[in-house]
């Protein structure tokens, strides 16, 4: 053989030899019995309970550590590390009685001193995730071995819920020795009091939790839980279909759900769990800008919106229409009389005619009080679904004679413009599941402009003295029923204001397999990723 050819052949052979280990590669370890494989898209970058915020991080931290209480969507606050709690002193302090059997993973018992330490730690080290509550937190004191009292500067029903369910309780004997807690990743064998410990972990790939089986309260039946980090959603779905994963912990594209619903044979044993979410997508008006300060105009626009068409086109049907009270029906404080308002283009047009916005020159666009054609610029995000939604909105609003158009922006640019109050209208979303948000999104004080920036989240500048009074009262109302009444009044006021016009509420869609584990339970917002599921899950056997 000629030399050059020979060298080519040799080169190809060498490459081929290199591929032998390729073929002989491990085909993927056999799945351990009783191991729950969950797919996630967010990496676990650090396990510092007070710094980690990604969804995977909070998942792991939630299993390794305990909080004082838990939150159930039906019952509200339920026992956690604490068996019982009592609100005292007009709401400025709460006393928790801890479960005497609680232990740290290294065997030492959990005492009130650990709780006292944790809260004072938060205050002293000023962890940014809790900055919102630090201002109101006066301190924590251990009364006896299993009783601890937490005190606030001013009463707040939500503050109690927050400190009881958000901060994990840390072991004093470990964390008091750490120099720089804000920069401590806590990735090596974190010691908590929760049902699981971290068994194995590879950066950016997976993390495995082991059920220690000796928790005082949890009824977790699964032996181990592995979170597989997937960078690409498509690959995750394919892995689920192959059986490598038991469930995916993110809300999938409606197109995927539609495909699986249409073609169940192509996805054996794969099920779609559908849960309502608690957030509402809205069109937010800037009430500081004419003519959008005219409530009749806003009402007309809201009547032009066809929520059903939006849900069909953008969410492929996986969503629900929302009423102008902006609270979802699954929330306890939902105002039943504020259901979704059906679209009525004729009525919208009549309102506009009556308010003086008429199309004098017959070009299809109405003119405003100054004779100029009415234009509405809608700011929106730049993801494909946002663009799709904006295109439809513009189409619908044009039907009533207003020249609407949209401007896509990155999330940061959009927020920038909102904070600068530089917009006509913007696609936004609100979630009033935590009732305090109704204060932060609509109280006058949160819409004030300081140095060119809006003080809070009331970007559109809604201002109503009656609403403010109700909101102020709601914040400090400790009686549940009274607070719910106030919240319902507030919703009624918001409904009349047409400040945030509801577009829809999307469903949370999660995929899971039903062949290895049974007991998947669906709840609003969390879908299958909730404590009830994990209490109910049983291993059915099989590979």
């Amino acid at each position, binding site marked *: 053989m000629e030399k050059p050819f020979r060298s080519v052949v040799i080169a190809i052979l060498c490459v081929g030899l290199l591929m032998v280990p390729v073929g002989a590669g491990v085909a993927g370890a056999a799945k351990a019995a009783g191991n729950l494989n969950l797919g996630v898209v967010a990496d676990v970058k650090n396990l510092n309970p007070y710094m980690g915020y990604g969804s995977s991080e909070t998942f792991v931290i939630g299993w390794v550590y305990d909080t004082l209480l838990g939150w159930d969507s039906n019952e509200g606050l339920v026992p956690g590390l604490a068996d019982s709690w009592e609100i005292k002193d007009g709401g400025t302090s709460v006393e928790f009685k801890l479960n005497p059997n609680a232990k740290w993973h290294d065997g030492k018992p959990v005492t009130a001193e650990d709780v006292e330490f944790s809260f004072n730690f938060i205050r002293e080290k000023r962890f940014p995730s809790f900055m919102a509550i630090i201002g109101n937190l006066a301190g924590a004191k251990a009364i006896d071995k299993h009783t601890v009292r937490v005190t606030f500067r001013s009463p707040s029903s939500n503050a109690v819920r927050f400190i009881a369910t958000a901060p994990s309780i840390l072991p004093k004997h470990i964390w008091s020795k750490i120099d720089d807690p804000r920069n401590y990743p806590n990735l090596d064998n974190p010691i908590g009091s929760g049902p699981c410990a971290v068994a194995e972990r590879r950066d950016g790939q997976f993390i495995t939790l082991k059920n220690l089986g000796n928790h005082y309260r949890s009824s977790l039946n699964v032996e181990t839980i592995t979170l597989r980090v997937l960078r690409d*959603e*498509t690959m995750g*779905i*394919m892995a689920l279909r192959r059986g490598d994963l038991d469930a995916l912990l993110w809300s999938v*594209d409606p*197109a*995927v759900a539609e*495909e699986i619903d249409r073609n169940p044979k192509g996805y054996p044993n794969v099920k779609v769990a559908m849960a309502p979410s608690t957030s509402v997508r809205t069109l937010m008006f800037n009430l500081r800008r004419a003519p959008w300060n005219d409530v009749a105009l806003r009402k007309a626009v809201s009547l032009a919106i066809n929520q059903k068409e939006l849900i069909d*086109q953008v969410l*492929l049907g996986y969503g629900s229409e929302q009423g102008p009270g902006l609270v979802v029906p699954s929330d306890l404080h939902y105002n039943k009389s504020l259901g979704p308002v059906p679209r009525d283009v004729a009525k919208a047009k009549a309102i506009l005619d009556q308010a003086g916005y008429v199309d004098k020159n017959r070009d299809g666009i109405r003119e405003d009080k100054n004779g100029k054609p009415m234009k509405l610029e809608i700011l929106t995000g*730049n*993801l*494909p679904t946002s*663009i*799709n939604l904006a*295109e*439809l909105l513009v*189409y619908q609003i044009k039907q009533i004679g207003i020249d609407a158009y949209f401007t*896509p*922006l*990155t999330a*940061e*640019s959009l927020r920038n413009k909102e904070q600068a109050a530089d917009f006509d209208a913007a696609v936004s979303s609100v979630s009033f599941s935590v009732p305090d948000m109704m204060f932060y999104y609509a109280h006058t004080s949160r819409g004030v402009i300081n140095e060119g920036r809006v003080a809070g989240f009331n970007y559109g500048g809604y201002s109503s003295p009656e609403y403010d009074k109700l909101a102020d009262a709601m914040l400090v109302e400790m009686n549940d029923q009274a607070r719910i009444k106030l919240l319902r009044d507030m919703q009624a006021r918001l409904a009349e204001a047409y400040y945030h016009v509801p577009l829809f509420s999307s469903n949370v869609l999660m995929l899971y397999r039903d062949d290895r584990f049974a007991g998947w339970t669906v709840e609003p917002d969390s879908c299958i990723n909730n404590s009830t599921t994990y209490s109910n899950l049983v291993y059915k056997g099989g590979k």
Partner: protein
Amino acid sequence: MREIAGRLWRHPRGRVGIMITAAVIIIAIAAPWIAPYDPYDIGQRGPRRLPPGPGHPLGTDAQGKDILSKLIYGARVSLIVGITTGVCVTVLGALLGILAGYLGGLADTLIMRICDILFVVPGLPLMILLANYMGTKFYMIIVIFTMLGWAGVARMIRSQVLSLKSRDFVLASRSVGARPGHIMREHILVSVSPLLIVNGVLSAAGVMVAEAGLSFLGFGDPTAVSWGKMLYEAQSGHALLFGAWWWVIPPGLAIFITVFGFMMFGYALEEVLNPHIPRQSAYSKLRKGMARYAGIGKQAGIGRPGGGESVG
């Protein structure tokens, strides 16, 4: 001009290049008349995720828009971005390269140092930052590509100018007292113009691939229909899961054919404009030239003519 066109046509690769390039340009201009649907019109959407069939020869996408129509309209963005950037990069690069090469001294040092920095700064993160800051409308993309791409052209032109500076006709011109501006325009520019034209065409091809790559990563113009964006939608719309090959193959083929046509055109132009260069070394020269102008794509590390990414 006539003569060049004639020679190009007779050149085998030239003919292919002209035909393809002309075809794509005609398709782009005539889009509203030849496309069966208007992808920007909400009222013209069909059923979602249809495979190729009657009514939709290439199927529909996740929102029901006709793929064939998107393909036709997509030519517009690719061509506008590619050609405009090619022109701008060449013009800017030529200007600065000639200034640097002919004037020398401070101008030279300044311009060359800026080139050095542009070569060293990693392109993709820079592009993402600029896209965040300036927005991703397609004219911004043109600006960003131009800003990052002129350095390669400038360097190449400068070395040409340096060798030209000492040639007879330039020296003669100077001895008669011609002003630098005049010399740069009449003599230098004229001498390097074949190189510029070829470079411009090949740059356009490189930019088309780079724009596709940028759109694919999600940083393209969100409202425009472009081939790169179609691939982005394919990836994020789970084409691989649904086996929707009709989302993946047509846009890629379109990019390939257009770039192929431009490159054929560019190669043929090179050989026609400089007939005394032997054919084989034309390739190696072009390879070196392409590697420099394609600094745009290489900066981004997102694929360029020349194949592959970092290697090759």
